[in-house]
C-alpha cells in the first residue's frame, strides 16, 4: 500500500462513551480528501487521533498508519518525529495557534530550525532566516521583512492564517491537515485561503485532509469526501457525487440546507 494515511476500524472512546466508531478511510500522496461534519460529529477528534494528539481521557483503538508508521499506541517520541516529517496541522483560529508574545518570524523559525537540525543540515541563523523568508513568499505574504518582526495582533486574520500555514509547511510534511481553516475568516479572505491551500497542495504534492462543516468550501477543495454524523461515517464518495446526488438522509439534509442559502443568493428565497 502506497497510501500516505490509512485509517482502519478507528474507534475513539472515553470510559463512558464512544465518540468515533469504526472509521476507515485512506489518503494517497497528493490526494485532497474532505471530512464533512457538524459539531459533535467527531471530525476534529479524528484529526487529533491521526497526529497522536488526543486528550489522555480518550482512548483510540483500531489502526492509523501514517507514512508507514502505526500511530495508535506509538510512544510519544516516535509521534514527535512523525508530527513534522509526515503531518502538520492548520487549525481554525490562527490567533490561538500563534504565540501572542513572539514575533511572527521567530515563530516560523522554530520548526524550521528543528527540521534543519534533524536532517543535519546547516541550521545557522542565516540559513534559518533564508528558509523563513522563502516560506513567507510561498504563502504569498507581502512585505515579508516587516512581517517577521510583527506580532500576531498586528496583522489581519488572513495574514495570521497564512503564517500558520507557513509554520505547518516549515516541517515539510507530506500530509497537511486543515481543520476548519477558513471558518474564522471573512468571506473575501476565506476565498484567498482556499485558493492558497489548493495551490500549495498542488505545488508541493501534499496529501490534504480538509475538515469542514462548510459544504461549498469542501466542494472547492476536495476530490473525495466522507460525511460524519455523531462519530460515524454515513456517506463517502467523489465530492461531486456526494454534493449533487447524496444518498444518505443526513447528507441530503446538509446538502439541502446549503442549497437553500445558495438559492437565496440567486434571489430565490
Amino acid at each position, binding site marked *: 500500500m502506497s497510501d500516505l494515511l490509512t485509517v482502519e476500524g478507528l474507534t475513539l472512546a472515553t470510559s463512558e462513551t464512544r465518540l468515533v466508531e469504526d472509521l476507515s478511510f485512506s489518503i494517497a500522496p497528493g490526494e485532497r480528501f474532505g471530512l464533512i461534519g*457538524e*459539531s459533535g460529529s467527531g471530525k476534529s477528534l479524528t484529526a487529533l487521533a491521526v497526529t497522536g494528539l488526543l486528550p489522555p481521557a480518550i482512548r483510540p483503538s483500531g489502526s492509523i498508519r501514517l507514512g508507514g508508521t502505526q500511530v495508535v499506541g506509538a510512544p510519544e517520541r516516535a509521534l514527535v518525529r512523525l508530527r513534522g516529517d509526515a503531518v502538520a496541522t492548520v487549525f481554525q483560529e490562527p490567533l490561538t495557534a500563534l504565540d501572542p508574545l513572539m514575533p511572527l518570524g521567530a515563530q516560523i523559525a522554530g520548526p524550521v530550525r528543528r527540521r534543519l537540525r534533524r536532517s543535519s543540515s546547516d541550521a545557522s541563523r542565516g540559513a534559518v532566516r533564508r528558509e523563513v523568508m522563502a516560506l513567507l513568499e510561498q504563502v504569498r505574504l507581502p512585505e515579508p521583512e516587516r512581517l517577521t518582526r510583527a506580532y500576531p495582533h498586528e496583522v489581519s*486574520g488572513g495574514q495570521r492564517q497564512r503564517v500558520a500555514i507557513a509554520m505547518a509547511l516549515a516541517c515539510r510534511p507530506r500530509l497537511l491537515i486543515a481543520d476548519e481553516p477558513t471558518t474564522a475568516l*471573512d*468571506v*473575501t*479572505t*476565506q*476565498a484567498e485561503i*482556499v485558493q492558497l491551500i489548493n495551490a500549495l497542495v498542488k505545488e508541493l504534492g501534499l496529501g490534504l485532509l480538509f475538515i469542514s*462543516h*462548510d*459544504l*461549498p*468550501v469542501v*466542494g*472547492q477543495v476536495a476530490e473525495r469526501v466522507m460525511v460524519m454524523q455523531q462519530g460515524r461515517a454515513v456517506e463517502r464518495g467523489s*465530492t*461531486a457525487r456526494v*454534493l*449533487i*446526488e447524496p444518498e444518505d438522509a443526513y447528507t441530503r*439534509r*446538509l*446538502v*439541502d*440546507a*446549503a*442549497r*437553500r*442559502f*445558495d438559492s*437565496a*443568493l*440567486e*434571489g430565490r*428565497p
Partner: protein
Amino acid sequence: MTLMSVENVSFSYGAGRRVLEDITFDVPRGSNVGLVGESGSGKSTLLRLLLGLDTPRSGRILFDGQPLEAKSGRYMRSYRRRVQAVFQDPYSSLNPAHRILRIVTEPLRSLKVPGDHRAMAEEAMAAVGLPADSLGRFPDQFSGGQRQRIAIARAIVARPELVLADEAVSALDLSTRVRVVDLFRDISERMTMVFVSHDMGVVAALCDRIVVLDRGRIVEAGETARILADPQNAYTRSLLSSIPRMPEGA
C-alpha cells in the same frame, strides 16, 4: 412608515479614527433589514448605537419619530420594551445557573410588564417551537440551536416592535441554521427586524432590504433582489463573488 431612521451618523471611540462615517438608512415598519459587512466594517458598532449602548458623535437615530435618548434611563426603559436583541453565542448569552422560565421572563420583570409572566413565557416558547415543560430546565440541557430558540423567546416575550439580531445564526451548525432562519422568518411576519451579519446567504434568505458596510461607510443599500441581481458597488460585487457555491448537477 418608518420605524427607525439613522441620519448622518458618525462615531469614533475616544479620539481614535472614525469607525462609522455618515451612515444614513431607514428601517420601514414591518421590514427585515440586513446590515452586512466583514470584520472592521463597523457593523457591530452600528448595532451598539441602535441598542443605545453608545451615542453617535454626530447625526442622530430616530425611533418611531423620536430621537433615541441613550442617556435617559427613563427613555431607555420604554425603548427596551419596544426593542429587543438576540446575540451570536447561544452558550454565553443564557445564564447557566437560571431555569429557562427565569431567563425568558427576565425582560418582563426588568421592564415591569404587568400580567401573567408564566403564560407569556409559554406563549413565547410555543412561538419558537419549544415545549412548555422546557421552562423548568436549565440551559445546559439544550443544544446550540435550542438555546438560540430560547434566546429568541426571551427577545419576543415582551412583544417588542423591533428585534435586533447580531450574527444570531452564525454560531449554529448548517442544518440547525436553516431551521433558525425559518423561525426568524416566521417571527418577522409580526415585527420589524434588523439582522446584522457577515453572511450574505443568511441575509439574502431573511431580509427584504440590505445595507452593505465597508470600513465604516455604507457602500450600497437597497432591495435584496436588486442588490443580488445587480450589485453596483465593487466591494458588494467581491463580497458576493467570494461566497463559495455548491457544485451544480448535470
